Every structure is written in C-alpha cells, then in structure tokens.
C-alpha cells in the first residue's frame, strides 16, 4: 500500500527569475520514516 500527500506550502518571492522555495523536505528518496517524524519544514519571513 502507498500514501501520496499533495500539499501547498510557502514559497518565497522570485529571485533571479526563479521562485526560491521556502519549504524544504527534511527527507530524501529512499529514507525510512515513521508516523510523526517531520518530512518537511518551512521558515516564516
């Protein structure tokens, strides 16, 4: 079984023509995770 999560998260303004993401995943492909562990964080400006 599989779970797919789709969500909106904050992205900062354009820099050098590219949107710089404020949200960052704290996991990588292949990592094992458990319920309650952070998979991504963002910083409020």
């Amino acid at each position: 079984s599989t779970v797919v999560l789709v969500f909106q998260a904050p992205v900062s303004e354009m820099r050098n023509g590219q949107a710089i993401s404020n949200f960052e995943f704290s996991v990588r492909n292949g990592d094992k995770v458990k319920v309650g562990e952070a998979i991504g964080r963002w910083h409020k400006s």
Partner: protein
Amino acid sequence: SGDLLRETSLFLSRPLHSPPPSFHFASTSGGAGGGAGSGNKFLVPGATVATMLMLGILHARRLYDDKKVEDRKEKGIEPEFSPDVKASFMKLLPLRSMSRFWGHLMEMQIPVFLRPTVYKAWARAFHSDLEEAALPLENYASLQEFFVRKLKEGSRPIDTDPNCLVSPVDGKILQIGEIRGPGALIDQVKGFSYSVSSLLGTNSNLHINDLEEEKSEEDLSGVVDVPGAKSWWCVSLASPKRQNPMSMRPKRGIFYCVIYLKPGDYHRVHSPVDWNILRRRHFSGRLFPQNERAVQTIRNLYIENERVVLEGEWKEGFIALAAIGATNIGSIRLFIEPEIQTNKPTAKLVPSERPDERMYEPGGTGVVVKKGEEVAAFYMG
C-alpha cells in the same frame, strides 16, 4: 515470493508420468534400471534434494538481484520505468477476487496457544517490532487484527514544531518533489509520470484555487503592465503605482510526497498537519501490487489502483492525502466515515472513471483533525 510460488507450483504441477528431476538423480545414484522398488526408494529424497536445490537457486538469484539494486543505488543510478510481459500478464489476473479471498483467510481466528508463534513468525518474516504492540499477542484473534494493531502510547511521538509537516505513515519515501509546469505531473519512477488531477480527481479543489489565483493575477497585472498599451506620460502619471495585492501574499508551491508501506509496517494513517477535511473521493480501481518492482513496470499504477482521497485545507492552503490499496492490502477504512466500504466485489471488468464523492458538511468547516490524529487504516484483503 511470487517467483518462488510460481516455480514451486510448476514443479508440483508436473504430470505424474513425466519423470521429475529427482528420478534421474535417483536412478544415477541407485543404479539405472534397478526396478520400481529401488527407484521409489530414492524418489522422496531425490525430490527433496531437487526442491532444496531449486529454493537455493531462487534465493541466490534474489540475493544477486538485491545486490544489483544496492550497487545501482550506491552509484546514484535511479531505477527506470521498464514495462515487461509479467506486468501485462498481471492485468489478466482476478486480483480483486484474490485480494478478497486473502482477506477472508486473514480474518480466520487462530487458537490462542498458536497466536504468539504465528505473530512472531510474521514479525520475523516482515521485520515488525512486536515490542511496540499495544496489547499482548494472545489478544489478537486473527492475523487481520494483528496487522492493524495499535501501538503503545508514546511509540510515535509527533513533532511539535508548528512549521513542519509530519509523516502520516510508517514507510519508505519513494518520491518527493514540487509540482511545476503544465500538466502538474508527479514522478512514478524515472521515465514515467502521472498527473495530479488523475490521482486526486478532475474536480479537485487544487485546480480551482490555482486557476482563480492565476486569473486574479492576470486581471490585476493587466491594469498597469500591458506592453505597448501605454505611453511614457501615462506611466509617469500613474503614481503611486497600483500595488498588486497578490504579490503581497506569500507565494505557495505545490509539493508531493509518496510513501510506500511494506507488509510489516504499522498500517494506520495519521494526520500530517492540523487541517479541515472537506471532501472524500473513493476511486474503485484495480488492485495491482505496490512493491518497488510493480512501481517500475506497471504504467499508471497509482491512478489505476483503488484509492481513497481526502481533500481539504490547512493554514497554508490546499492539502490532499491519497491512500492507495494493493492486492494483499486492498481495504481502506476511514475513522471519520466508518460506513465507507472499499474492495467490494465488482461486476465491472473496466473500473468506472467517476469516483464516489462525499462532501463533509457542505459549506461548513468539514471535519477538523489535529496533527498526529488517526484518520484511516489499511486492512488486508
């Protein structure tokens, strides 16, 4: 295990008059033409040796394949999409019936004295941690009950950082990324992607929101920034320049995370954030396996399989959680809507494209769930 079953069934289904490999082995060691009596004497040990040999070869092949996968990972080579004949053959199998039969088997009660042995064997085979089980093993009447067991209090501490999103399940991260560009695609594996609208449904709120935002931005930007529409004096008189309120808002990206649950993992689904669940969609699709090999060989695996999509809003905008069933774990139960039934017997050969949809409290706040709260569980069969 699929290969093993296939090879074993092929071996066992040999016609009786066809001499098995063990016969030749027995004849050679016992002397050819020794009569029926001397041949039979070595038949059982011969068959056993042949079976052991076959199992050994299969195990060695599996180890070799695993080593190859590890080597590729170490070299940074991503697995690529490569459909094969076995994947095409899967579409012909009655996977739903097999899944339901499997579910019935798993619901059979196990005698109390056998329960610890059976569950420990399961845990050893699928690497489950029995120390985390909330109840003593004797309390789980069937493998099904054991499979969806709750965990001891405090086994899964929830990250309290308000600016983080937590994993809804135990599992392995298959894909993460940001959805960009036309088509809004999610990678299934390198070389094959599927659209987010196919996964969540074409009437998903995500697209409505995006279209509205884009339209508002276009309308507002059109007031002052149409190239060639204004002369220099018009621009200089338009002071102070009208501020686009959309540009004042923090921009938001759309991200995705795909997590695979192995059979030995804890199979309850928790809320990743505080959010309001506004609607639910149930797609009654197929029930292909979901293992890594299937991901690499079956096209549109996630959008063809049976799934339940919960959609709503959190403080940063849209959020949706899709729980996708598999052959062995095909049922999804929602704690917020216990009456929903999945993996039902269906007379349709081709699953309907239209999902069964329900809005929670139309016009209201929907169902409010807190970060870490249980929302669903996967069941076997």
